Every structure is written in structure tokens, then in C-alpha cells.
């Protein structure tokens, strides 16, 4: 990692150059909600001024650029009694600007599942390795609890990471790809003053977190409270719509569907993101459903996040962005559910 600074004016020049040469995705204000608050989403941008660098929280996470809602796994070309399978992994390089630490940590968790281990997913690897990530520090929202989950700071998994220190950015350069881009843009070495400002800014951000979720011992609690009434209480509210998994930065489960084209010349095998809250998630052939009630499915979602994933990768799957809590039409949010499970007073 190299530490440098870049002036804000130079950063704008740099980003405009990047946009000119690449597909660039950044947070944009796309709408206003019923209360007049802006709604942000990651979308392709064509100029620096379109980017909402001070965005609050995008409604959907960054995940969908790596795990698209629908993705073709392979095609089967039919020819009389024969068929041939075709697989393509390729993707064009792209740049994503203005990513928060929690979203980068979300990607790192996905990397554990989809890039490492015995069966890396080539579809994911192709997208991940062809994405240039520029991160940006920010002030937490009132409902952010990423600090409780240690994902308020990204240590790796990005190319560049910026922290606003007044008229310039404190910059972490984490790849030679990123370093090479600065051949024609002026960047400066760190001076004592920059360092002080950086530390002060980090301290200030860390002090702004209002929401805390106690994670210590939660994995065991998931086991011990497996039969708890809390699951029924929240499960009865659950509409089993699967919205939480769609907006979650780390939910990766999916379904595979196959369809034959009307021409009867080929069939398409597609992967569609799914949710463990959907009713047929664990239904097997013959009709038996291992989790028929909404409550067991909701419980399972939390159980995977705070127990199953911890057993596999030594950290919870949740990054603490509360996107699921915001998006849930039934008003279920992880903060209240976990507080409830710990038998603490819900605020």
C-alpha cells in the first residue's frame, strides 16, 4: 500500500479521464422518496459532476455488479439428437467510484465464498478481477452499525481509497494498476500535516456511530435461542418477499432455471439471485419443504449470517449497512431482531 495525497481539483481531472476511457459506475441521485429525501443508486456516469460523492446510502448494494440479478451460466445448442454446451465468462473492465468501506468489506466476504476454496466461481472471478474500485470514506448514517461488525474500515479489496482531509484527499494506493494511472496526474507525498488531518478525520468518523449491535457471543446465542419466541414474533411479520436478500451486499444464494428457446434451437441455463425467505427455498422434489413457515426461514437468514458464515469464514456475513432494514416492507430490521434476541430493551 502506498499513501499519497491528491488535490480535489486534480482528482476531478483524474476521474474525468477515467470516465473518458472506461465504463464508470458511481452513486447518482436517481429519485426522491415520499418524504423528499434523495434516493441514490450505483449507475453508469458520464461526467464527474454527475457523481454524488456525498451520498448517504445507495438503496441497492454494490453486489449486483458482481452478482447480477440474472446471469447466463451456459447455453445448450441443439442439433437433432445432439447438444453442445457453451460457457462464456468474459466481461469488459469497468471502474466503480465512491464505494463505502462497508460495501468493500461486503465484496471481501463474497470473495471468500466465490473466489477462494475448492470451487471458485469463474463468473464472479471474471467480474471481480475486471473491476477497478475507488473507495471513499464517509460519515455514518444514524442506522449504520458497520462499526459493530468491524466493517467500517476497508483494509484491502480496493484499488484506491480516499479520505477527505479538507482541500485534498488522503489516498491509499493498493494496486499497481492504480499507481500506473497516476503517471500523468500530480499526486503528492504525505506530509505531517496531512497525517494529522487524516487521523483526526478517522477519529471524527468513528465517533459518529450512533447504532451499536452487540456481536460478542452472538454465534452461540443463535444456537441457544434456536427455539426462541423471538423468531416467531418477527417471523409472523415477515411477508416472505425476499427484498432483504436483494439489497444485501453479501447475500449470494441463487436458483438455476433452464428454458428452451421458442425456436427450439437452444436452451438457456440461467442463475437468478434468490432469497432464503422465499417459500420454496428448501423445498425438495416430491413437495417436502424443510422450512415451511416464514419464521423458520427468517431465523435461517440470521442463523446463516451470524452462525453458519462465522463457522466457515470466522466472521459474520453481515456488514452492518442496514439496507435490509430500510428496504423491508414489514419493518423488520436486524438491529431490533438482534436486540430482541439478546433480550435487551428495544429502543
Amino acid at each position, binding site marked *: 500500500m502506498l499513501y499519497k495525497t491528491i488535490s480535489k481539483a486534480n482528482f476531478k481531472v483524474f476521474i474525468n479521464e477515467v470516465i473518458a476511457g472506461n465504463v464508470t459506475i458511481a452513486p447518482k441521485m436517481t429519485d426522491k422518496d415520499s418524504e423528499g429525501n434523495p434516493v441514490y443508486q450505483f449507475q453508469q456516469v458520464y461526467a464527474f459532476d454527475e457523481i454524488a460523492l456525498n451520498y448517504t446510502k445507495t438503496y441497492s448494494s454494490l453486489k449486483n455488479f458482481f452478482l447480477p440479478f440474472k446471469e447466463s451460466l451456459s447455453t445448450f445448442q441443439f442439433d437433432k439428437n445432439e447438444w453442445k454446451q457453451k460457457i462464456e465468462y468474459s466481461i469488459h473492465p469497468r471502474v466503480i467510484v465512491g464505494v463505502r468501506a462497508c460495501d468493500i468489506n461486503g465484496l471481501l466476504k463474497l470473495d471468500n465464498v466465490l473466489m477462494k476454496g475448492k470451487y471458485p466461481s469463474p463468473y464472479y472471478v471474471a467480474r471481480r478481477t475486471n473491476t477497478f474500485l475507488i473507495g471513499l470514506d464517509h460519515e455514518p448514517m444514524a442506522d449504520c452499525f458497520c462499526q459493530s461488525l468491524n466493517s467500517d474500515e476497508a483494509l484491502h479489496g480496493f484499488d484506491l481509497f480516499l479520505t477527505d482531509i479538507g482541500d485534498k484527499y488522503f489516498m491509499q494506493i493498493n494496486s499497481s494498476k492504480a499507481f500506473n494511472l497516476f503517471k500523468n496526474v500530480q499526486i503528492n507525498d504525505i506530509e505531517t500535516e496531512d497525517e494529522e488531518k487524516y487521523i483526526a478525520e478517522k477519529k471524527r468518523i468513528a465517533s459518529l456511530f450512533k447504532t451499536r449491535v452487540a456481536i460478542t457471543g452472538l454465534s452461540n446465542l443463535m444456537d441457544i435461542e434456536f427455539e426462541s419466541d423471538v423468531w416467531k414474533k418477527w417471523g409472523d411479520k415477515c411477508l416472505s418477499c425476499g427484498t432483504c436478500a436483494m439489497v444485501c451486499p453479501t447475500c449470494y444464494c441463487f436458483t438455476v432455471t*433452464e428454458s428452451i428457446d421458442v425456436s427450439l434451437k437452444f436452451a438457456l441455463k440461467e442463475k437468478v439471485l434468490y432469497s432464503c425467505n422465499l417459500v420454496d427455498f428448501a423445498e*425438495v422434489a416430491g413437495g417436502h419443504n424443510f422450512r415451511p413457515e416464514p419464521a423458520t426461514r427468517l431465523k435461517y437468514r440470521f442463523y*446463516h449470517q451470524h452462525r453458519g458464515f462465522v463457522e466457515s469464514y470466522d466472521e459474520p456475513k453481515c456488514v452492518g449497512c442496514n439496507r435490509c432494514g430500510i428496504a423491508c416492507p414489514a419493518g423488520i430490521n436486524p438491529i431490533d431482531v438482534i436486540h430482541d434476541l439478546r433480550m435487551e430493551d428495544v429502543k
Partner: protein
Amino acid sequence: MSYEIPRENIAAEPFMAGPPDFNRKSRLMQTDKVYECMITNIVELTDMEKLFHLKIMDPGESRLFTFRPGQFLMLELPGFGEIPISISGSSAIRERIGLCIRKAGKVTNMLHKARIGTKVGVRGPFGTHFPLERMVGHNILLIAGGLGLAPLRAPIYWVNEHRSEYADVAIMYGTKRPKDILFDYQFDMWGKIYNYDIHLIVEEPDENWKGRVGLITELFNEVDIDPHRTYAIVCGPPVMFKFVCNHLNQVGIPMDRMFVTLERRMHCGMGKCCRCMVGSTFTCVDGPVMDYWTVMNLKEAI
């Protein structure tokens, strides 16, 4: 009385059999590519179940494909879907992959209409297997209910092929009705040639049935079990293996010497789609074969 903790012999594990391959990052980078297979034979077992023999068409791929008893594969029917099927045949025969399949859903209904010569695809093998190396020198109790005999055929073939390495082998098999009995043509052969102790039982007999009537647990009255020298392999619906394993536990077989296989919905076979998750683990990666201690300690497993 002294409590002696049994020694674990790791040299018996199959991963010690070959030289370690530290450079191989994954089995295949092309994890989603299927092996093209031809259906070479179809055996009608009952109204609902058929045994399919598959042959991997490419000789190179056919050489690559090896499995261990208990593992499963993903069977692809292009345009219809992909399903997890445990391999029901001998792991020694490369030319023939046996799959016993019940007509139960969209893909299997279509597959039952297939004829000899149809081309299908397989990926795999995936999952864990029965630790037959560890069972060498011991008695083996093979207990199956209904379609549970299908995955049991792989370890049965293994024992057939290595018969001298194992002591007494008993097969206990229970079904609902006599006409549901799978592979009825094989029991005589297994009994005569390989000297297995075979016990069959049905719940609802018809007029021709002369054997035992009742639940599978009643067969325990007929079989002598030496708990210190016996491994058990149990396959069947969760209700059945819960009763069976509890009985075996009372007899004194340690829970880590009883093995069961789990059934779950699967869409990938590689621990990615999460559909087969039980408790905190995946059936496709840490299962489908698990010892009863593990299963007991997984939430929602039974």
C-alpha cells in the same frame, strides 16, 4: 472401568493414499461444464423408479471421472434443469455410472421418458463419502428404507469388491409395500455370493408376501450387533434414520460410527447456492454423508 479414547488412524483416510497436490487450486476451473453422457441402459425397477446407466462419451473425461461411494453428481437435462442424484453403482466400473431415479419432479418426469441413447450431462462427483477405509476389519450394518437403497448400492458394491477386508455384513431393508422393493433381483446374489445376512420387511403386505411385516426397527430382533466392532450405514427418510440411529445408539455403537446421507434441494453442488444448507453447513460440501454425531448437532437436520 477405564475410559479409553480411541486412536484416530489418519493413514486410513483416502487423502493420504496419493501424493499431495499443492499446486492444484481447484478441481476444475470449468466448474459449470458438464461431462456429456449417453444413457446406455434403462432398467425399470418399479412404477416410480428406474435405474439409468450412463457412459461418459469422451474417453479422456471418462478416465478423469472417479467417485467414492456416497458421493453424488448433478445430472443435467438441457432445457429442463439440473438435479442432484447420488451415485448408485460400482465405483470400480468407469464405463457405467448407475443412477436410480424416482419420478418426483419436472426433470425426473422428463428423464423417465428418455430412451436408450439419449444424451445427458453430469457434473461432479460432489460431496463426502462413506469412510469405507476406516471400516476395514469391522462388521458393517447397511440399513435402508425405501429409496434409501439407491445410495447404499455404491458402498455395497465396494464391499463386494473388497469382501475379504470386511467381517460380517448385514443388509436390512424396509419398504412400504412389497412392490416398492428395489433391486429385488440382487438380494439373492448378494446373499449367496457375498455371504451377506439379508433381512427384508414391509409395512403393508400383499397376499403373496411371505416375509416379515412391520417397521424396519423390528428387524433388530433378528440381528446380533457387536457394538465394538460394527459400523452402520443408514439411508432413508429422516424419520426412519432417527429411529434407527437412536436404537443403534442404545445398542452401544458410537455415534461417529453411524453414517447417514441427507437429502436437500441443490442448485450448484459446490457450496454456492445455499439451497442445501442445514444448520451452519452445506449438504453438498460437508455432506451428504455425515456421521450421526454431526447430524444430531446440526439444527434442522432431522
